């Protein structure tokens, strides 16, 4: 795994949303924690013992590009939900800067902030946050209502997004009459109704059944393709992060552990924590040939079939194993390296990966006595 993936770092100029040194500390006199280096460097337990404060978000810096799906991932308590709320100041950050389209969000007053929330940002919540006393269509048009649009206008717009998220026919039902998946569609429609630039998702599908969850993930992929919104998506589910995210920010105890694409996280984990985190991921589904290509050995025949560097390992497996000579990885006519059987097998049946070797169904077929 030598070839490091070249992903252009998004610089401040073309970023839609730029976060620098963001802190959120809960507790007494929270302000002092980011300011004083000796406090800022303490870990969670030491900080709580010394000051009674909890740093939910500590010193985060990243940029979100226009049109990107930016995933924030971490276990519960890692501060990811706090982070996403800090982005629109639903929770007031303790320190750091938030720049959106060149505008300093932390300097915005209450009125300006409301204006931004009414038109630029929308949020989808884990437990939907619907208003039980309103019909679906009135829930969806709530955001339009608070910004003062006329009833016919908001009805029309609400109907559009209801159709878009596949809720047509349910306009006049109440949230409690819908299933969890359908309720989250209402939440999604409500967020889309404002036609925001940025959609924020706070673990939107965690409360749903696995099947519904997959359906809703596909829905988000489809919406992203159709409406092309920038999305910041919080989840604790690695497969969801890999499926949706252009880039993934992995958080632990409020701090960033690694920021990168899915194959970077799997292929080049920053530390043992990340390595542990991605251990169970079927690597062949995530890694591309770029990650496993090696320089050709002396005397190796270089007339094998050619594949692009972004081909997934899984897709290449059959071809590589069937070919009697190494497969060439070629990008724009330039040879990046070659791949033989052992490289493919190292990924597909990685001995270090307990997930593959220890699976009982692989070791012992189904003739095991029933008990």
């Amino acid at each position, binding site marked *: 795994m030598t070839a490091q993936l070249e992903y252009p770092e998004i610089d401040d100029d073309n970023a839609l949303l730029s976060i620098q040194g963001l802190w959120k500390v809960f507790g007494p006199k929270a302000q002092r924690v980011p300011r004083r280096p000796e406090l800022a460097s303490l870990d969670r337990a030491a900080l709580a013992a010394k000051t009674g404060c909890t740093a939910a978000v500590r010193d985060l810096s990243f940029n979100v590009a226009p049109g990107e799906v930016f995933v924030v991932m971490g276990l519960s308590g890692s501060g990811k939900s706090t982070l996403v709320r800090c982005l629109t100041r*639903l929770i007031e950050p303790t320190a750091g800067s938030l720049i959106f389209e060149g505008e300093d969000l932390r300097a915005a007053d209450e009125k300006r902030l409301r204006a931004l929330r009414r038109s630029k940002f929308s949020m989808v919540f884990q437990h939907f946050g619907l208003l039980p006393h309103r019909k679906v269509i009135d829930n969806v048009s709530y955001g339009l209502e*608070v910004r003062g649009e006329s009833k016919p206008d908001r009805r029309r717009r609400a109907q559009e997004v209801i159709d878009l998220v596949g809720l047509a026919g349910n306009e006049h039902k109440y949230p409690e009459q819908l299933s969890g998946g359908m309720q989250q569609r209402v939440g999604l429609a*409500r967020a889309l109704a404002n036609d925001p630039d940025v959609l924020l998702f706070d673990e939107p599908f965690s409360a749903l059944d696995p099947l519904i969850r997959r359906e809703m993930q596909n829905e988000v992929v489809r919406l992203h393709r159709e409406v092309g919104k920038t999305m910041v998506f919080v989840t604790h589910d690695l497969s969801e992060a890999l499926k949706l995210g252009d880039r993934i920010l992995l958080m632990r105890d409020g701090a960033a552990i690694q920021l990168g694409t899915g194959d970077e996280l799997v292929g080049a984990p920053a530390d043992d924590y990340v390595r542990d985190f991605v251990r169970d991921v079927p690597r062949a589904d995530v890694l591309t040939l770029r990650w496993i290509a090696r320089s050709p050995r002396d005397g190796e025949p270089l007339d094998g079939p050619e594949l692009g560097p972004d081909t997934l390992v899984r897709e290449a497996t059959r071809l590589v194993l069937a070919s009697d000579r190494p497969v060439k990885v070629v990008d724009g006519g330039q040879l990046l390296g070659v791949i033989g059987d052992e490289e493919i097998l190292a990924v597909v049946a990685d001995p270090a990966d307990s997930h593959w070797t220890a699976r009982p169904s692989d070791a012992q077929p189904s003739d095991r006595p029933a008990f």
Partner: protein
Amino acid sequence: MAAITSDVQVEVRRPRRSVIIGVLLVVWVAAYFLLSGIDTLPLGGQETTGFHRWLTENRDFVGQGNVFFDAIRTAVDHLVVLLQDLVSRPSFGRPVPVVGWLGVVAISAYLAWAFGNWKVALLTAAGLAFVGLQGLWQESMDTLALTIAAVLLSLLVAIPLGIWAGLSNRAFKVATLILDLMQTLPTFVYLAPLTLFFAIGPAAATIATLIYAAPPAVRLTAHAIRSVPPESVEASRSLGSTRGQTLTKVLLPMSRSTVVVGINQTIMAALSMVTVAALIDAPGLGQTVLKALQTLDVGVAFNAGLAIVVIAIVLDRVTTAAGDRPWRTASVRRKVVLGAGAIGVLVAVWFSRTYVWAAEFPSEVGIGSRIAVITADVTAWVQDVFGGFTYGVRDAVTKGVLNPLEALLTGSPWWLVGAVVVTLAAILGRWKAAVPAVVCIGLLVATGVWQDSMITLASTLLATVVVVAVGLALGVWAGRNRRVDLAIRPILDAGQTMPPFVYLVPFLALFGTSRFTAIAAAVVYAVPVTTKIVADGIKAVPVATVEAANSVGSSNWQVISKVQLPVARRAITLAVNQGLIYVLAMVVVGGLVGAGALGYDVAAGFAQSELYGKGLAAGLAIVLLGVLLDRITQAAAPKPHGKGDKQ
């Protein structure tokens, strides 16, 4: 590790605590035999202290004549009189009220239907017709007018306060503190001081009722606002709502049904207080009960008490139905029918203003006197048949338990009792309970009615033991068995809505005038609330926890004693606390029927102007007892676990 060690500590500490308390009580009894009769601070019925005489002399100091209080009194009086003019008494130069009985029945039923459903509308019409047939129409309307006035004023104060307490943490803390105190005071107590400010009459009655009835609405409004899911509020904020928009479009609509529960409780509390306020000359059914009580006319008292219960049931069911109404907006058909109904109501009101038969409730069919006669007969019969038995029970309990307990409390030197109480408080709740205990004991001595306080305390403690025993048994049973719960709930509800001194009437018949009568009435008065809280606590134990206990083969008793009761410990402490307060309130009311002590002192303060100061001091002593008992039981409550682990 930390969790394990703290568990061990609890295991070690609990038995030690009960041993210490046992030793303390034994020492007390031993000391009693040595020291009895010393420093007992006795005070005869007509005796007063300097403090009492000072209070009597200065009774006009702050009261009538003060511009501020007079303005409030005038405004409240006008509101009450206006409502009385509307429904209960001849007004505006006509021999009948503005709206006659037919109009009142029509309007009430229509409102019940519009806010609730047709069933409660029928119930409303039937209930009002029933009290009319009892021959108590005017008294009922007076009670209703007073209740409505008090409820309107209560809500006017309570709902904004509740919203404020719901939105602000600081306001919530302050409000909880004040409401705790307001609800700790037995209703009977602040009647006396209030007459000092607002004179005897409807205004003082309304304001006393307001104080008693507002807390539930404040509490439940605040609770409702606070329990709106934070995500809904966040969602609203994230879409750029202003505070006002979030309040009116999200918080208030989502709190509606809980707020209605608060209004329901306020109405119930107001009704019960309005009847008690008869003691300070409030008009209505309470007067009828009180007069009958004074002449020991069980039949008439029961008839009026029954009317109060009927009105209570109607009000309760209508507001409950209003709270249960789903979110859905009315269908077109319902709107049309409601409109037609409104026209019917107008016609009925017109009738009631035009014809005498529709204005004054016909008196030919009075079933009230028949109810009174039957009740009197039944009471006499019960007295004949069970008199020996009930008197026997009374005498046995009085001689066997009450007298020794009372002797222990009143015969010990005051400083010995004080020391025992403070030590007990310190064991149960450390300094948090000990400090209030010291303050309360000191002030109790200062009131000059120490011995009467101890007599009241003896009755209260005895009644509370019975209440807790019965309440636990019934509560656990109802909490574990849905069918039992459904069966006894209505009885408990009725028991709670019945005005306190209606209870006294049947007990008077059974037990005569004695301390035991007040204790028995107090038990019946306090058992419903205790049972309800215990049952709710048991029901709140997670199903999974009980299933886990069952899955390892626990017997029913083991599940109850090792799982359900410990998990529901906080609810049980609350039940004991509420039981104590209810018992105290009723024991005090029992002072009217020969229980003597503090209740009698207060009543005598109303009746004899030279005892006014002593009555006020006795009222103060009741408050002090209430605060003392409340603080000790509150402090004995287990702390919530895992504090600080999670935010």
